[in-house]
């Protein structure tokens, strides 16, 4: 009896150690960043300073704020991310419902294409896609050189609307599973009461799909926020946080007299800028982590 208690205590300690260790590795870059972002440039060459800056300063954040044009870039990024997430949500709900409720000749093959669209890496079609949007002619309907859609948000909007944006296939899969798991009795009742198919979908099925809608929206928001690939491809040089971050080094003109500090100081600003970029997502996660963590159980991926 006593041996068992000691063993249990030991197991608990081992578990605690493992959890703290792994958690530290996960949080390490974030903590490092925070430490660097608050560090005064004088501390950079101080060998006794490793984690905790001797002089705390807001200066790095102020410089990063200005270089990024933070309020404006944040509004832009937030606007486009919410727009894309909302469009992606609407599109994948409709498509998922279509796959869940009605069969037509070839619908299984189309659904297999949904799965395939998750596996095809965007880099594979990057060059043709870029050229198609650069000389967009709607399959020959518009006059020859076509319109240049690069630099506008149309490529991203079109892809979100058609359920072919980054990881949209996964969302279609999730919404289809959800609607399949819903009983058909609600719809039947609606039909008997004289509602049409569209009215049934928008009036009855959608309000009942709130849990899965929340998951799709949140994941879509976060993944669109973190996306650098498509924004760099379709919106080069625009006033977005992602783009601003990658050009922060080029924009900075060094006011420092001390040449040694000058070249490396931008690293501290970089760290502050990165924190400003991830902050909104972290805040969102802090409030809504429950939805993220319980998401897989609700999506029907697991039995």
């Amino acid at each position, binding site marked *: 009896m006593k041996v068992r208690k000691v063993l249990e205590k030991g197991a608990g300690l081992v*578990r605690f150690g*493992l959890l703290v260790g*792994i*958690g530290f*590795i*996960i*949080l*390490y*870059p974030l903590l490092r*960043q925070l430490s*660097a972002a608050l560090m005064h440039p004088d*501390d950079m060459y*101080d060998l006794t*300073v490793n984690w905790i800056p001797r002089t705390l300063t807001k200066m790095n954040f102020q410089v990063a704020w200005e270089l990024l044009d933070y309020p404006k870039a944040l509004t832009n990024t937030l606007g486009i991310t919410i727009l894309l997430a909302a469009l992606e949500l609407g599109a994948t709900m409709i*498509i998922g419902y*279509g796959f869940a*409720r*009605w*069969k*037509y*000749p070839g*619908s299984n093959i*189309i659904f297999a294409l949904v799965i395939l*669209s998750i596996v*095809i*890496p*965007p*880099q*594979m*079609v*990057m*060059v*043709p*896609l870029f050229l*198609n949007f650069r000389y967009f002619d709607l399959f020959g309907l518009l006059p020859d*050189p*076509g319109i240049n859609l690069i630099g506008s948000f149309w490529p991203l909007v*079109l*892809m979100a609307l*058609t*359920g*072919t944006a980054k990881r949209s296939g996964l969302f*279609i899969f999730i919404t289809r599973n959800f609607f399949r798991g819903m009983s058909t009795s609600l719809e039947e009742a609606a039909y008997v009461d004289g509602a049409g198919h569209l009215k049934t979908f928008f009036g009855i099925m959608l309000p009942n799909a709130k849990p899965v809608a929340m998951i799709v929206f949140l994941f879509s928001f*976060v*993944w669109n926020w*973190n996306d650098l690939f498509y924004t760099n491809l379709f919106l080069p040089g625009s006033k977005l946080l992602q783009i601003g971050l990658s050009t922060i080094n080029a924009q900075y003109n060094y006011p420092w007299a001390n040449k040694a500090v000058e070249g490396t100081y931008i*690293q501290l600003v*970089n*760290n502050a800028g*990165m924190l400003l970029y991830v902050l909104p*997502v972290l805040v969102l*996660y802090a409030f809504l*982590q429950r939805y*993220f*963590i319980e*998401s897989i*159980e609700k999506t029907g*991926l*697991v*039995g």
Partner: protein
Amino acid sequence: MRRFKLSLRAQKALLGVLFTLPFILGFAAFLAYPFFQSVIFSLSKLSIVSTGYELDFVGLDNYRHALLVDPRFRQVFVETVVGMAARIPVILIFSFFAANLLNQRFRGRMLARVVFFLPVIMGAEISLKMQQADYMQQAVSFSESGLLPLSVLQELLLSLKLPLAFINFIFAAINEIPLIIRSSGIQILIFLAALQSIPKSLYEAAHMEGATAWEAFWKITFPLISPLMLVNVVYTIVDSFTAPDNALLELIQNAAWTGAGFGVSTAMSWIYFAAILGILAVTFILLGREVHYES
């Protein structure tokens, strides 16, 4: 006027087509067509002219260029594919282990889950950028770089007269740890949900029949989560295929915009895609037999 009436079946089929139409159009326009184009691009020389772009058919020249002329492609290709194949089992084992850890009852379980799931929220691109920024910062401040005083460990191992290959392996593994942990977020979540979906009564019955925890694990837990093992393998492959820290993808992207041109770049990505399909096929053949499906 008489209303045109479809049979119920045709009506349903029509609705199905209507609801899924956006995807069908989008797939055709933004995936299938570019995919098809990329085959042609990989066999052509592409040049930008004022009215768009022009293609000259060059046969397998781009593939030849990628494989025989490009100085870095072969090396990076082999390294990336081998590294990925080696990382998949490690990620699987780690995420299964972590899911078991998080499935136990203890205080602060919620906090642990929040932290373990953070890499999914932060996204691989962002984590990578952070690491790069951090690397620079460390180089500047001359601070101890690792989590452990690695130089001490290295000296210890050297003084034990262990073979150098073994020491190198250990250090390569240690360097991989953060990467493995940060790319296991979704996999942990999937395993965790699978573990929680196993009915407790199965374990109770096994216990009554005198099964040990070890036997219960291999006879109950393992078969019941094996379908998700496959899901996780596929997810891991796809995830690392498109990971932004993938050196090969960087090479392919650079080739497109600044290097050997669009044609060679698409040829490279086709070679890579073929390799990935090969890996996927092998995993399906190997794991397909092991997976237990409930009918």
